[in-house]
C-alpha cells in the first residue's frame, strides 16, 4: 500500500528496455516484442491487486 509499486513498474519498464537493446544488438529483433509483452504482463500483475483492493473498498462503502 505504498509508493514502491510505482518504482516496481518503472523497474519492469527499464528492464524491458535494456533487454530489448541487448536483443536488438545481438540480432534477435523478433524477440523484442515478446519481451515487451512479458514485461507488460508482469507490470499488470503488480497493479491488479491494488485495483482489486480499491474496488473491494468502494464496493463495501457504496454497497455496489
Amino acid at each position, binding site marked *: *500500500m*505504498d*509508493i514502491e*509499486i*510505482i*518504482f516496481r*513498474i*518503472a523497474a*519492469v*519498464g527499464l528492464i*524491458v*528496455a535494456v533487454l530489448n537493446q541487448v536483443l536488438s544488438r545481438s540480432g534477435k529483433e523478433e524477440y523484442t516484442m515478446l519481451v*515487451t509483452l512479458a*514485461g*507488460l504482463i508482469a*507490470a*499488470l500483475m*503488480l*497493479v491488479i491487486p*491494488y*485495483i482489486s*483492493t*480499491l*474496488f473491494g*473498498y*468502494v*464496493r463495501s*462503502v*457504496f*454497497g*455496489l
Partner: protein
Amino acid sequence: MILKIFGVAVVELAVYAALRRTHPEFAVLTEIAAAVLVFLFAADSLGELKAFFDETVSAAGTDPVWAEILLKVLGTALVTQFAADAARDNGQSALAEKIEFAGKLLMLSLSLPVLKALLQLVAAFSNGT
C-alpha cells in the same frame, strides 16, 4: 496525509516523463497505479464519513432505501469518473465518452425508483385538489 498524496503524484510524474518516450505502456500503468494509490490514501477517511452518513440517515427516520440508492449512484459516478479520466488522459477520448455514457445509463436506472415515487406523489397531489 495530503503530503503522502503529493509525494506519490510528484514521483509518478517523474517516472511517467521518464518512461513516456521509450515505453509508453509502462508509463500508463504507473499512472493508473498512482491514481489507485492516491484514492486508497483518501479512502481511509471514507469509512468515517460513511458511519456519519448512516447515523444521520437513521436519525432522520426516513426509509433507508433512499440513502442506499444515493450511495450507489455516488459510487457509480466515482468509478465512472475514475475510468473516464484514465482513458481521456491517454488520448482515448472516444472510449472516455462511452464509459461516461454507460455510467449515466447505470445511474439513471439506479435512480428509477426515486422518480417513480416522485411521480406517484405528484399524482396524489393533483388528485387531491
